[in-house]
């Protein structure tokens, strides 16, 4: 169960935060959610925020307001019942952030790593604005889109996109790096035809941008 939920109904958008979660923790999840659906919300839509019984202090209110406004949302303190401000059916379809890179910054907060403990199968897509650490394999047809580095303790056979919002210094590390495609920021490299990447030894492999080209090398060389 996610600690952050966006709910849309005829009264507008509701942002529900788990009452037992820390504010900092919530903030990152809110940001990830907004990022994943950033063009879904039309400009100036009102959003009602609830955090169980908890009250926000002034600083928290400011940070959250600022964050919401970056994605075209306006924090309404009270639930609007009579006059709906936004009609969910009429909203723009969700857009994937992968394809429209944009750098997201927030004062004083740095995104922590997202840790995933499973094999990613075809059809799964992970989007996270930060470092993604995967303990498991990535199968063909799965995708990881990360704002920063991607670290895979396993074999990578899917599509990996590090530094998706413009960080050209992001790196991808995996025990075995045999993806269908590697993307770092705006640079794309594809698997050789026939699908076989050259064998790079057993120490793991790393991919990064060097001189506008994507390089894949054995670790530690």
């Amino acid at each position: 169960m996610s600690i952050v939920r966006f709910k849309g109904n005829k009264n507008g958008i509701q942002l529900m935060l788990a009452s037992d979660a820390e504010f900092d923790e919530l903030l990152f999840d809110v940001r990830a959610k907004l990022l994943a659906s950033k063009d879904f919300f039309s400009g100036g839509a009102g959003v009602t925020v609830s955090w169980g019984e908890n009250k926000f202090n002034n600083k928290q209110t400011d940070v959250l307001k600022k964050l919401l406004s970056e994605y075209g949302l306006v924090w309404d303190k009270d639930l609007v019942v009579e006059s709906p401000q936004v009609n969910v059916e009429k909203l723009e379809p969700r857009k994937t952030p992968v394809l429209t890179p944009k750098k997201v910054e927030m004062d004083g907060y740095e995104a922590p790593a997202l840790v995933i403990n499973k094999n990613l199968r075809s059809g799964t897509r992970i989007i996270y604005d930060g470092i993604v650490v995967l303990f498991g394999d990535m199968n063909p047809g799965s995708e990881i889109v990360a704002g920063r580095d991607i670290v895979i303790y396993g074999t990578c056979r899917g599509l990996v996109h590090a530094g998706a919002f413009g960080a050209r210094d992001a790196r991808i590390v995996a025990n075995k790096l045999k993806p269908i495609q590697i993307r770092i920021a705006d640079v794309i490299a594809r698997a050789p035809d026939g699908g076989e990447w050259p064998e790079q030894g057993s120490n793991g492999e790393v991919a990064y941008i060097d001189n506008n080209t994507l390089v894949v090398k054995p670790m530690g060389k």
Partner: protein
Amino acid sequence: MGEVIVITSGKGGVGKTTCTASLGTGFALMGKRTVIVDADIGLRNLDVVMGLENRIVYDLVDVAEGHCRLKQALVKDKRFENLYLLPAAQTRDKTAITPEQMTEIAQQLAEDFDYVLIDCPAGIEGGFKNAIAGADRAVVVTNPEMSSVRDADRIVGLLESEGKANPLLIINRLRPHMVNKGDMMTVDDICDILAIKLIGIIPEDEYIIIATNKGEPAVLNDDKLVGKAYRNIVRRLMGEEIEFLDLDAPTGFFGKLKRAFGV
């Protein structure tokens, strides 16, 4: 204005995707500007059969949602200059696109290409409705076995009720040997039941698996009977009248002897 053809079957696993890949490549081989569209959102495979899976950047859903222009999403084939693939999205589902959007995309493609081939997902739900929405003609693929013919019949009915009358029939994976023994429905049996125009018979061949392994549509190999069968279908779709292949080509000494005596 090009022609939009949807390849459909109802039942899964009868060879829609292999057919689409080979027919599309076949049109390109004949010098036609061709695009093949994978409408199987969430379970895409046409890219793999074409050997283009590592070249995909944008997909059908990106086009429908306006993340990219249609031209950006087209993946150019590695063998033919005049052949393109519009891939399906893998991390989305069938509801990510509407029949109206599909029709719009098919129409735009038909302005630029001579042939637009749409690979329809299995089933009769939303995915099927999307795939057939923009099509001028429909091709139904079936195998010579009961469940597949039954599903094909259902599809013919649905196509007719959606205003796509006179679909064309491809019988895939025929085993002449079994037909001769009386243990497989004959081409005539199937045509008799479905009562739509036959446009191709493709024999069962292990080579299809080898071709997919290589990412090289079987139509490219004209040493194989399957390759010839696909080429003939392409030419029939282009309006030529061509006799059906004799799939019963005898192999081995006794086969030839049998043929020589006309039995």
